[in-house]
């Protein structure tokens, strides 16, 4: 078993209600749940791998395919849409030379959309990893990207 998962589980235990916390911890370390990670989690929780996969795919922030080192999630919901998220998306796509849903070839960024992130009064907004950027302009968005390695 993956040592990361062993370590995580040693803290959380393997009661079924700990499944999400374990997945979240793996995500916070690796950005996504690999096939091996899901098998290991299934084994530890004594549930089927399909079940782990089923739970994982329910949640937008639990990815089961490899993401870049940094994950940009730009809010696409109503307030951010009204306030110009499309311009921000265009600027980021142009800057990173990738489309929404894609990862840069150097694995530095994955660019995703997400539903409302709760900053409607300071829209448009996005999250990079777990940092929020609000009242974005195309320029501010590009500056934000430069913070990340």
């Amino acid at each position, binding site marked *: 078993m993956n040592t990361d998962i062993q370590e995580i589980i040693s803290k959380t235990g393997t009661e079924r209600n700990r499944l999400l916390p374990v997945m979240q911890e793996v995500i916070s370390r690796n950005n996504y749940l690999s*096939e091996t990670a*899901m*098998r290991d989690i*299934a*084994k530890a929780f004594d*549930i*089927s*791998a*399909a*079940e*782990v*996969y*089923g739970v994982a*795919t*329910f949640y937008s922030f639990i990815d*089961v395919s490899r993401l870049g080192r940094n994950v940009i999630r730009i809010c696409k919901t109503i307030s951010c849409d009204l306030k110009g998220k499309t311009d921000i998306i265009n600027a980021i796509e142009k800057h990173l030379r990738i489309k929404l849903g894609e990862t840069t070839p150097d694995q530095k960024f994955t660019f995703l959309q997400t539903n409302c992130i709760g900053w409607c009064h300071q829209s448009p907004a996005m999250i990079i990893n777990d940092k929020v950027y609000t009242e974005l302009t195309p320029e501010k968005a590009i500056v934000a990207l430069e913070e990340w390695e």
Partner: protein
Amino acid sequence: MQDKVHITINSKEFDVDKDLTILDAARINGINIPTLCHHADLGIAGNCRMCLVDISGSHLLQPACATVVTEGVEIQTNTRRVRQTRKELISLLMSEHDTNCLRCPKNGNCELQDLAAEYGVDGNDYIQLSADYTIDISSPAIIKDDSKCIRCQRCVRTCEELQGVNALAVVNKGGELRISTFLDKPLHYVVCTNCGQCVNRCPTGALTEKNYVADVWNAIDDPSKHVVVQTAPAVRIALGESLGYPAGERVTGKMVSALRGLGFDKVFDTNFTADLTIMEEGTELLMRLKHALTGEGKSHGALPQFSSCSPGWIKYLEHEYPDLLNHLSTCKSPQQMFGTLAKTYYADIAGIDPADITVVSIMPCTAKKFEAQRPEMTDSGFRDVDYVLTTRELGHMIKEAGIDFDSLEDSSCDSLLGAHTGAAVLFGATGGVMEAALRTAWEIVTGREIPFTNLDVTPVRGMAGVKSAAIKIENALPAWSFLEGVELKVAVAHGLANVKTVLQLMKKGEADYHFIEFMACPGGCLGGGGQPIRTTPEIRQSRMDAVYAEDNALPIRKSHLNPEVLHIYKDFLGEPCGEKSHHLLHTSYTARGKY
């Protein structure tokens, strides 16, 4: 009256048990409420919403399947908004569904199609939400076609609740929600046991067996092929359902006539090899006992010995508990013993080149399709069993051939591989292998008949998920003196969820049995994944009653007295578990990944 509540359905008053759902309360009183996700064998989902009814005081419609009756509740199952809602729901389901029904294997036996017909919905009301679904044909047993799926999750609940396998899961959410496997891998590459219980419960054509009828017709129509057929014990007590008979009707004689009518060159019987299995597996058990108790002889595997007839169960063990594979009897299943013997023993006597023989099995089972294709199943020098059809597929062939089944005369199987005893018939029901084995082993060890009235070993009969029995051996024959005073402990489990329970007990050291019969399917083969759809506890009980009636009606009811079995040992095999048997009738297993 404390356990009853007073309710009103459609202005009629009823007193019903207080813990009933509205659905059950209505059905008991002759009021039909349509359902899709509900199934008598499964937990409540409440997700298809077909069973919505009007309840006094509620603006929302309530699902009858998930709502328990309460004192004084007024229920209406036929208001305008209930009818319109149902109609709307069917329309919505149709908009998500590939409505090319004529190309669907479930055409004519589809619960969604039935409802669409009842409610006059043609599937053209809304925008077709077509997605590019791929059809998963990876498995030799089961086809999964997501374009036919209505997301009722019966299959997921079956795989979890009845089978404890969880090969299928609900994945994604919203419009993307699907029923899938681990990482959407093809069925053949995951822990699926091919048991087909999901196929039995799928209301539409999303899960069906892989159909080999065309291949069988090709073989029959090929003059260079000598096509022999075998039918499993559980087929004869269920085939009638495919042809309009009530559940539990025994159609053995007509079935044999029908098979001849279809053009099979020889009609044999898997029951013959079921009797043979008892000889081999019983002997193997006695050898394991002897080695365990006296240290004599060579080890033939660990105790408890596990039965090995059910290919779903075998694949389950290979995936989930590969460390226990040495408990499995090395006996091939009756289907595979038959295939090997048809292309060796029978070919020899009949003077036919085994290369020209096609062996067809009619099985109550989808996993048998997989079993026949296991790479090790070629001991005859050829693929031992060429094609496996389910009971359902045989029903289709009979209809397709225009055979008027009802007017057929009874006939009997051909000889050499056709004679059978009542004990063999028992293989069709949970506990049957155990009962047949006990009838024979007891007599070998003691020289007397097993001490149960009419040979009915009642402790291993019935639908309880796990059954057990203990019989103390007294006055053993001299050759078996080491068994004197031993309490022979046996257990029976059917449905993989129950199987799992027993295996977990065993792992904890709390299952000190000598022999355990495991069957993948609820009820045993009579509830197999290849049996006529639909399945309910009542239908399976009727089939079980038929199995015991069939056993009771046969003149010989102990495997070791089957004349053709005695004959084959004398002429061909030598002795049970002897060298030739070992080569032709026994097999080995493969540890598989758990995920």
